[in-house]
């Protein structure tokens, strides 16, 4: 009964979204207030309906209702409750429903909070949102229905892939989807603005929080995915340049560009057409990402040809959305007039360069991702593009970006003096050079990675600090006043400095672990002690153990430094009988200066064990940096001017012209 209710709610939501996408759009062009107002009502209704549908599917998973095909295929009664819940989106159909649900939440938010939006803009934004949601609801209903029943329910299910039964990965998709869908809001605002033919500061003030939200959630989602790969896949890799990773990375890069260019639109009333284009591109990359992952086209052209239904449907959505939006852009972009001027050396120019570098690096990732496909279709050659390509072709742009970031962040609007910023950043420059030279002189090998990476990291962190301090007039006024000024700085200034420093920390973690990691592979007898990079490890025992839905061999390893015990490690090899799938659970001891990373391998014939041991210096800073970047984004989002935008509504509600 509950399942049918969910099924019905989805169908109803589809019908509602068809109304929402047509009626308010017509109302906006005819200036019919009541037609426009329908946008808000339908958006809230859609939120309620998709919430019911999502709740119904969750109910089916939580109660292990094996009369539902999706639950049979992806759940098991013995599975821990957390993974029963997260199993809802641990599959294609459920994840699409989650996508739609988040879309409806955002639509509902615009309807509820968007009182200060001009009536026509609000109606058009919600109408464009409904176009997206109707496309995806159609996709769900016609190709990926999660509410299908089975005629003869089995006694138990097939279980969720054991690798997905993990906290890091359980929350990875919701964050990514919040990001992708958040970019759909920027997209809707961009398309609505093109129809209106107007982009102004108020528009940018609405687009920026959504873009920030999308960027923050993408940052967290990508971070979670990378962290999961690090501890789960058993050799401590954290980024593979796999197409599905690139699918989330490209929107992240473009979103980063967009949230910077939206500042220019808001503060300086220029770069409008470019910002609108970025908003369209950001969501286009989200759609392309969905297409890549859902159609399997990148894995193999043939996989796509064998089961083309879903792929073709998404390709259709993709073509209409991207093609339509870009066509609209081509016709209307010239109506977005720019009113202000700025000189070569100015914050605006700095942000233009930022945008350029981010967009170009996204283009490189895109080229690398689709090149094998393009080559196979056009010339029939089969080739691969993997990590070594991206490391060489992508990294230089990030290095340039990191070099100009602190300088650009300090330039003043309109016309700046380069000398002045350089003056303020002098201590940061000296610090970065000292760090770089020091690391270079320590390093024995010829690799430049560590010195360059660490110098850049110091440059970014110290540059951010210098920016904040100079804004607080450090060294010019008494310390107490500096502290007060620091406290009173706008949140967006703090957000900028914190996010930029976060990127520095991430670069530090990446450079350190890549350059200085020590790896050891060997066969170990029980009781043997072996040395790796200043530490000693002893395999005391390997014990059999029974988990809730798996069996495991658990190693008992003690790590010593200078004869003192520093960590007890328990690497596991698990076997999940329902899915007949083994997994490795690395044991990791994390401190701020290093991770000890131990993996238990196969038992050898003579009773000894293969083991992999890594010393990974400063790895944790990679994710601390990701977290700090996200915190920076949240700080910016909480800036007063966005709160003012939403409270102004309560004081003076926009009067809707009554025709």
């Amino acid at each position, binding site marked *: 009964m509950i399942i049918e209710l969910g099924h019905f709610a989805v169908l109803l939501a589809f019908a509602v979204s068809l109304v929402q996408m047509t009626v308010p759009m017509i109302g906006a062009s005819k200036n019919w207030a009541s037609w426009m107002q329908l946008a808000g009502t339908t958006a809230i209704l859609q939120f309620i309906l998709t919430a019911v549908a999502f709740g119904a599917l969750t109910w089916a998973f939580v109660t292990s209702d094996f009369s539902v095909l999706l639950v049979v295929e992806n759940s098991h009664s013995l599975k821990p409750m957390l993974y029963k819940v997260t199993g809802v989106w641990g599959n294609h159909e459920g994840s699409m429903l989650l996508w739609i649900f988040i879309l409806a939440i955002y639509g509902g938010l615009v309807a509820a909070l968007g009182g200060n939006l001009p009536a026509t803009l609000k109606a058009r934004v919600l109408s464009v949102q409904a176009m997206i949601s109707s496309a995806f609801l159609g996709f769900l209903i016609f190709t990926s229905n999660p509410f299908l029943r089975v005629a003869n329910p089995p006694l138990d299910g097939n279980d969720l892939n054991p690798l997905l039964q993990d906290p890091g990965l359980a929350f990875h998709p919701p964050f990514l989807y919040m990001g992708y869908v958040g970019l759909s809001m920027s997209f809707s605002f961009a398309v609505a603005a093109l129809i209106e033919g107007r982009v102004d500061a108020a528009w940018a003030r609405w687009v920026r929080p959504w873009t920030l939200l999308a960027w923050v959630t993408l940052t967290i989602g990508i971070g979670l*995915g990378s962290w999961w790969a690090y501890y789960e896949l*058993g050799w401590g890799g954290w980024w*593979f340049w796999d197409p599905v990773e690139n699918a989330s990375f490209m929107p992240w890069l473009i979103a980063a560009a967009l949230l910077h260019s939206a500042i220019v639109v808001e503060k300086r009333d220029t770069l409008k057409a470019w910002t609108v284009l970025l908003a369209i591109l950001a969501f286009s990359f989200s759609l392309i990402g969905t297409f890549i992952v859902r159609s399997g086209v990148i894995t193999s052209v043939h996989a796509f040809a064998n089961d083309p239904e879903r792929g073709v449907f998404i390709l259709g959505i993709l073509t209409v959305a991207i093609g339509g939006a870009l066509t609209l852009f081509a016709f209307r972009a010239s109506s977005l007039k720019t009113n202000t001027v700025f000189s070569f050396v100015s914050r605006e120019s700095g942000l233009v360069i930022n945008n350029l570098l981010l*967009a*170009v690096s996204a283009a*490189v990732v895109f080229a690398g991702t689709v*090149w094998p496909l393009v080559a196979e279709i056009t010339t029939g050659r089969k*080739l691969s593009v993997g990590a070594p390509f991206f490391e*060489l072709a992508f990294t230089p742009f990030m290095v340039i970006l990191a070099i100009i970031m602190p300088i650009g962040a300090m330039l003043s609007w309109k016309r700046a003096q380069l000398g002045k910023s350089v003056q303020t950043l002098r201590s940061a420059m000296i610090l970065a050079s000292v760090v770089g030279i020091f690391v270079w002189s320590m390093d024995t090998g010829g690799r430049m990675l560590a010195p360059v990476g660490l110098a850049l990291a110091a440059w970014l962190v110290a540059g951010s600090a210098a920016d904040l301090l100079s804004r607080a007039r450090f060294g010019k006024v008494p310390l107490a006043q500096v502290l007060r000024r620091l406290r009173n700085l706008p949140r967006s200034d703090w957000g900028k400095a914190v996010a930029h420093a976060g990127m520095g920390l991430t670069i530090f973690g990446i450079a350190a672990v890549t350059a200085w990691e020590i790896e050891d592979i060997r066969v170990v007898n029980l009781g043997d002690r072996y040395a790796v990079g200043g530490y000693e490890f002893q395999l005391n025992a390997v014990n059999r153990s029974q988990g809730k839905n798996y069996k495991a061999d658990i190693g008992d390893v003690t790590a010593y430094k200078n004869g003192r015990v520093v960590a007890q490690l328990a690497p596991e*090899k698990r076997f999940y009988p329902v899915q007949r799938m083994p997994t490795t659970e690395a044991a990791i001891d994390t401190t701020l200066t290093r991770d000890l990373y131990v993996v238990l391998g196969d038992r050898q014939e003579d009773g000894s064990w293969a083991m992999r041991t890594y010393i990974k210096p400063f790895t944790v800073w990679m994710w601390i940096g990701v977290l700090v970047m996200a915190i920076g984004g949240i700080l910016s989002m909480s800036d007063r001017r966005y709160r003012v935008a939403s409270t102004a509504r309560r004081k003076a509600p926009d009067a809707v012209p009554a025709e």
Partner: protein
Amino acid sequence: MKRLIFILMLLASPALAVQPDEILKDPVLESRARGISKELRCVVCRNENIDSSNADVARDLRLLVRERLTAGDDDKQVVDFVVARYGEYVLLKPPFSLSNLGLWAIGPLALILGLILALVFIRRRPKQQPDDLSADEQARLEALLGK
């Protein structure tokens, strides 16, 4: 689930990637072998190099690489040997060749093009403002200034 397929392909078998018995006695040779292994694709895997792959064919290739190195080949000869057998497909970094020009050139070209466009955009701005006066207005202004 974004990573589902990726994961399934990654963990085809439980074994470790590089096995202890594969490792060469000579640490210099071994480190060269590891370097080469990271550039070669495991042909049955999805986007994974033979160094971190658990698949049997990856192990065979790792052994082959080490065999060639022990026989005295330099790095390029080893890679060429593998490419001759398995084709361009095994290279995770496509070579700088004419047929891959589009792939390698897109970044630098897009950057140069973007820079030119940005320069044109920024330069064009200041010129627009003084042009606000029409010819008549200009004439009047000059009259007022007594020219």
